[in-house]
Structures are given as structure tokens and as C-alpha cells.
């Protein structure tokens, strides 16, 4: 039997199809989020099934997660992204004790027990300066592609200090830094440190390792190092970081069946 997990995030829709008996990922897909989120998720879901020769009736259960989870009509149940990211990461890294997910709109830090259950979590509160959105802004300002930010940051010799808590003011700071002749590499590295610092502030007093970094921002080179520095702990990037939420949702669908 096939189980589907649909992660309707703020920036992208991610879908994972899981083979029930084996727990193997059969297929996955990612599409940029749009205005008609429900239709987009439905279309992507059907397309993925079709491409893999799977009928809708072959799907024993589907769970939706992410910000848009409530409007994903093809899923019978919703589960929050906290639980799903925990389940997805633990499937891929079975020793994970701390999970950091930095997405386009929010970031979260999950504490797991030795059995992989969520013990506690923290999510950033309406502060875009602690999310991937900040990286998008700096990429836009510097006319650099998102995927090239890591390479650029690696050239930094003296990361800039970005101190504003608000991303709008932080953007003003970036403009000011550019005007004062700061190197783009230093600005990008400064932004990465700022995001990492805000994430570390959510961690609380004790961080158990292994710390696993997931979410789309994990693909931006250098962010893992910035996080490791901020946390004072090693940070490993999760395999398939963009789809861990969807994978977790598929696992939840399987467990509910």
C-alpha cells in the first residue's frame, strides 16, 4: 500500500509517496507555492501518482502538513509540521535528538527523546529575520541567486554585524553596509550569522546531539556552519532536507492506517 504525505509550505508544496510494507520512498515532488494552493497541491499529487503508475485507490492514506494543510482536500487528516518533521528526520537519521528546520516563513527547533518522540519545541514568532525569507532579501539586494549565497559567504573574511530584530530594518542595514563599501560576501555571511543566532536563541539551555538541519535553507551552503557556530555543537544536514516534512506526513498516514 502507498501512503502519501503532502507538505503545503509557505514557499513550496512537497509530496512524498511511501511504500507501506517497506517504508521506502517511492516518489517525491516539489513545486513552488502559488495563489491557489489547494488546486496546486491536488494537481501535483495527481501528477505524481500518474507519473509513477499509481492509482488514487492504491493510496491507503494521505496526511497533509504545513501552513496550507487545512485546504489540501486530497488528504484525509492533518498533522502539524512539528510532528511530521520529527518523524521524517528520524526516518532518515535515526539518532537525531535535535531538529532544526528553517523554512521560507518560519523556523523551528525540536527536541526529541531517545525514541524519536517530540519532547518540546520552539518556533520563531513572526520574525522574518530568523527565516529563509531573510536570505531571499539579501540575495535580491545583492543580485545573487539563492543557490550561490553559500559560495559567496565562503569568501567572507569579516562577517558584517546585522543587529536589527526586524527584517525590514535589517534590510536597511544591508543598504547601509553596501553604501559604506562592505563586501557582499561579508554581508551574506553576516545575514547567515544573524539567522543562526536567532535560531540558537530558541534552543534553550540544553541542546542534545546529533543536531540535524532540515528544510529548504539547509541547502544553502554555509548555513550549517553558521548554525554550528551559534549553537556550539556539530550540525549535520539531513538527507533530502526539503521533503522531510512530507516524508513525516506519509509516515503519519501509515501509522494512522
Amino acid at each position, binding site marked *: 500500500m502507498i501512503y502519501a504525505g503532502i507538505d503545503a509550505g509557505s514557499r513550496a508544496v512537497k509530496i512524498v509517496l511511501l511504500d507501506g510494507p517497506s517504508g521506502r520512498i517511492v516518489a517525491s515532488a516539489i513545486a513552488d507555492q502559488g495563489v491557489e494552493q489547494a488546486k496546486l497541491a491536488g494537481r501535483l499529487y495527481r501528477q505524481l501518482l500518474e507519473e509513477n503508475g499509481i492509482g488514487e485507490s492504491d493510496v491507503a492514506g494521505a496526511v497533509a502538513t504545513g501552513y496550507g494543510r487545512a485546504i489540501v482536500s486530497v488528504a484525509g487528516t492533518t498533522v502539524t509540521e512539528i510532528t511530521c518533521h520529527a518523524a521524517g528526520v528520524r526516518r532518515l537519521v535515526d539518532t537525531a535528538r535535535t531538529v532544526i528546520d528553517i523554512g521560507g516563513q518560519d523556523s523551528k527547533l525540536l527536541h526529541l527523546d531517545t525514541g524519536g518522540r517530540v519532547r518540546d519545541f520552539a518556533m520563531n514568532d513572526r520574525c522574518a529575520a530568523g527565516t529563509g525569507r531573510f536570505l531571499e532579501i539579501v540575495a535580491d539586494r545583492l543580485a545573487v541567486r539563492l543557490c550561490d549565497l553559500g559560495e559567496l559567504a565562503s569568501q567572507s573574511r569579516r562577517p558584517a554585524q546585522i543587529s536589527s530584530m526586524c527584517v525590514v530594518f535589517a534590510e536597511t542595514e544591508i543598504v547601509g*553596509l553596501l553604501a559604506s563599501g562592505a563586501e557582499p560576501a561579508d554581508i551574506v555571511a553576516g545575514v547567515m550569522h544573524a539567522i543562526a543566532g536567532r535560531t540558537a536563541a530558541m534552543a534553550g539551555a540544553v541542546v542534545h546531539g546529533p543536531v540535524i538541519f532540515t528544510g529548504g535553507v539547509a541547502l544553502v551552503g554555509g548555513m550549517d556552519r553558521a548554525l554550528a557556530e551559534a549553537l556550539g555543537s556539530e550540525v549535520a544536514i539531513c538527507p533530502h532536507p526539503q521533503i522531510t516534512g512530507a516524508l513525516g506526513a506519509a509516515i503519519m498516514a501509515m501509522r494512522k492506517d
Partner: protein
Amino acid sequence: MSQILYTCPFVPAEWIAAHGLRPARIMPQSTGMHAAVAPIEGLCPFARAFANHVLGDSTSCGAIFTTACDQMRRVRDLVVDGTCVETFLLNLPKTWRNAACTQLYIDELGRMGRWLYTLGGCVPSADALAATMLDFDGRRQAMPDRRVADSGGVRLALVGGPLLAGESGLFDLVVRNGGRIVFDATETGERTLPDRFDPALLRQDPVGELARAYFDSIPAVWKRPNTGLFDWLTRECTERRVQGVICRRLVWCDLWHAEVHRLRDALHVPLLDLDVSDDSPAAGERTAGRVQAFLETLQ
């Protein structure tokens, strides 16, 4: 190791010195993202900077926080468990026109004295305390008076809370743009100098005189009511022929923020509301632009 850190002007330096310890009033530098106390929305950057200074200090034996503002009172909660430096919270009464509050301040000085003793300080005799107070009083009188020199430029008052270390360039910035600070009414400026000691009262009751010169005399935004501050500012601005006021306040400092409109109404001169989040170069650039524009307007 005999050094005591503090920032609040209501902590009398001579009281610490009379106990045989070295008072060190800190003008902290704002700290980066990865400091022990990270930036938190709502947290005053000065309180955070002082907390991080204390947490990073291994050479002092004590640090004094006060209840002058809720930010400083509460940031101590973040410090107590993370530092080898002993901390003391001085209860500063907010009301001030009754004898009970002056007495509370005196009692708190006594409590501070006992704490200083536990840190290796001594118990000063009344004569020793009086001598120390006179010594400090003399040194304060030797400080230059900004009112005396008159070298031109738009005459400005600088009003507000404490400055961060990296903001000391603000005075030169004003000069470069054609102005001059003739009245520093910030917490790190002359506003918070204690009154001169009365030699007669000093001999009778040195601690009482300390309380009068500090607690009763220093105008503060947090006193309730804070009419004393407004009366003093109005008088001084008039006397010094101030042409404009820079109200420099730290973001999240509610006490100064709430008074900006009242200051504008009370002082009857143009006012620049200058909010500052830290003393980084980026913040300095922003400040420079605003000060330049303000002085262009006044000129």
C-alpha cells in the same frame, strides 16, 4: 578583584570607595548576535550590553544592578546563574516626595554596604565616609563645564538615557555638522551628577547627605511623578539658550519613548527623536544622517 561594576548613576561611587573597593561605572559596548545574552525583541540594548559585560568579566568581584528600570531589574535574572561575579540588586524607589522613600534608599545603601563587606570591603567610619565624599565632590567640581566655552554653532541639548560606548562620537558628529552640545542631559552626562555635598550636613549625617545629593537631587525620567526632570530640563535649556534638542533614546526604552511628545511640548524648541538600537557602524550611519538633517533644518 576589588572592582565593583555598575552603570546606574544612583549608585554612589563614593559609597563603594569608602568600603575599600573600586567603583567602575561601565559604559558598555553593544554585543553581537552570539553573546551570552542574545538580542531579544523587547530587550533594551543597554541592559543587554551591561549584562553581557558582566557575564564576560572575570576580574571584578561584584556587579550592581538597580531597579531604576524594569529592563535592568529583569536582565539581572539572566545574569545571576551565568556569572562568577556576585550581583546585587539595589531597590531604587520610584516615588520621591516622601520621607519613607528617601529612608528606603538609605536602607538600601546600608544593605549594599553589607554586601560590599562580604566581598572583602571594610565598614567605613562616618569620618572616613565624609572624607571620601569630599574627595569625590572635589573631583567632580574639577570637571569642565560645557556652559563656559562658547565656540559657536547651533546650541543643542542632548537628552535621554545612557549612551553606549560606541556612541561617544555623537558629540563630534554634531560639531562636524555645525552644531554643539551645550547641555548633556543623558544618563551618562551632567544630568546625573549628584548635587554638591553640604559640609555641615556631611558632618552630621554623611549617609543622609549622600541620599540627598543622589536620590533626592538627580532628575530622572523614571521618578513618579517625573515633574522634577521636566522642571530641570526646562530651566537648563532656557539658561543655556538651547536652540534644539536631540532626544536620543534606546529602542524598547519605554520610559524615554513615552516622554518624547511631552518634551517637545515642554521645551519649545525643535526636537529630533533619535532612536538607537546599538552602537554598531550601521546604526552610526543612520544616526549621522538624522543629525545632519536636523542641523540643516536648524541652520
